[in-house]
C-alpha cells in the first residue's frame, strides 16, 4: 500500500506508528535517492553509506520538519548535501584537487562491477564527470530523472533560469567532450 507524504508525516508524529511510517518512507524513496546519490558518487558502497546516513538524518529531524517545502524536496536536499560533503571529505583525506577526484571516479567506473554500460555509455559518464559538481547534479537530474526545473530549483535552492543555463552549458561541454574523444 502506498502512502502519501502527508499520511507518512502524520503517522510519524504518532509514537505508536512512527516505525511503520519510517518504513514506508524508506520504501517510497529509497530507489529515487539511491540513484540520485549513485550518480554523484558513482561507487555502490559509498552510495550505500550515504543513503543510510541520509535516512538516519531524516529519522532524527523528521519530527522537526515544518512542511514549508515538500517532503521529497527536503529528502533530495539532504541526500545532495550528504553526497557533496562526502566528496569533500574524500578530497581532503586523499589530498586531492577537484579535478583529480573526478578523474579517480572516472577511473573507478572502468573496474566497477555494478557498471554495465558499453563504450559510448562509459564515454558519456566520463564526460559527465568532467563537469563541476553542481552542474553534474543539474545535468543528471534533468537528463536521467527528467525532473522539472521548478522541482530542481527547490532542491538545489537555485533559480530556474540559472538551472536552465547550467544544464545547457553542461550539455555543450559534454557534446564537446564526445566530439574530441
Amino acid at each position, binding site marked *: 500500500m502506498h502512502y502519501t507524504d502527508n499520511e507518512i508525516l502524520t503517522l510519524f508524529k504518532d509514537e505508536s506508528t512512527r516505525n511503520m511510517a519510517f518504513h514506508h518512507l524508506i520504501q517510497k524513496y529509497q530507489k529515487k535517492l539511491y540513484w540520485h546519490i549513485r550518480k554523484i558518487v558513482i561507487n*555502490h558502497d559509498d552510495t*550505500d553509506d550515504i543513503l543510510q546516513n541520509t535516512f538516519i538524518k531524516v*529519522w532524527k529531524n523528521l519530527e522537526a520538519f515544518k512542511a514549508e517545502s515538500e517532503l521529497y524536496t527536503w529528502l533530495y536536499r539532504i541526500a545532495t548535501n550528504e553526497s557533496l560533503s562526502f566528496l569533500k571529505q574524500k578530497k581532503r583525506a586523499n589530498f586531492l584537487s577537484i579535478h583529480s577526484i573526478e578523474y579517480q571516479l572516472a577511473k573507478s567506473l572502468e573496474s566497477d562491477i555494478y*557498471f554495465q554500460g558499453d563504450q559510448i*555509455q562509459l564515454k558519456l559518464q566520463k564526460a559527465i564527470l568532467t563537469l563541476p559538481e553542481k552542474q553534474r547534479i543539474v545535468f543528471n537530474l534533468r537528463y536521467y530523472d*527528467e525532473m*522539472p526545473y521548478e522541482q530542481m530549483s527547490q532542491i538545489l535552492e537555485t533559480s530556474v533560469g540559472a538551472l536552465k543555463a547550467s544544464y545547457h552549458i553542461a*550539455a555543450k561541454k*559534454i557534446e564537446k567532450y*564526445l566530439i574530441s574523444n
Partner: protein
Amino acid sequence: MILKLSKYLMSSLYNIPEQDNLSDNLKSLGLSENDVKSFSDNDFNKVNSGQELNEFEILKNIPKKKFSQEVEPITEFWNKSVLDIQKKIEVHDEVKPYSHLSHVPVTKVFFTPENYFDNLSYQIKNRLTSDENIVSEKLNIFSLISGNALKYGFSVLLMIVFIGIYILNQNNGMSQNDCQSLSCIEKNEIVNATIIQNFSNEQLYELLDEQNVEAEFKYLSIINTSLVSENENIDNLSTNFLMEEL
C-alpha cells in the same frame, strides 16, 4: 480528452496500431463473427440485465466492485503517463541541438547487488538501534557525571587534595634546615655574608682562585724576593695578605 491524447501519444511514440475495425476487435478477443451471431437474444437480455452470471454459483457470489472506484486510478494513471511523456519530449528537445549527445541512448548503466533494496530498511533500522544504544550509553555516562554520587565524590577528592597540599607545605617548613637552595637563605644571612671579616680562613681559601694567586705570587716574587722567602707556601699566607689580594 486526456485519454484520447495519451492514446494518440502512445500510438505515435510506440507505434501501437489503433483497432477501430470490429472484426479486428473480435480477433483480439479470440472470437469469430459466427460466435457473435450464435449469441441468442435471451443471452443478450441476460447481459443487459446484469444476470449473466447467475448460473455460475461461485462467480456470482464474488462481490463486484463499483465501476466509479476503479475508473479514478485509471484516469490518474493516464494523467501521469501523459505528464511523463511530456517530460520525455521536453528533455529530448533540449538535447536535440547536440547531435552526439542526442544519439546516446538513455539507458540504465548502473546496477545494484541483488536484493539490495529488500534489506535496506532493516539495515537502516539496525544502524539506528545501534546509534541509539551508543547515545543512551553516553547519556548514562553524562547522568553519572551530573549525578549526586559524583558531586560528593568530587568534593571528597578536592578535600583530599587540599589536605595533601597542606601536609606537604608543613613538611617543607620542617626541612628548611636541610635546604640547599638560595631561596632557603634568610635575609640576615645574606647581609652578614657580605661582610668579609666574618669569613673564616677556610671560607676565604675556598673563595680564592689558586691559579690567580700563584700567578700574583710569582709576580710579587720578582718584585720583592724577600716577601717570597717568608710566604713560599700558599698555606702560610696570612689573613691580611689574603684580604689584600681579594
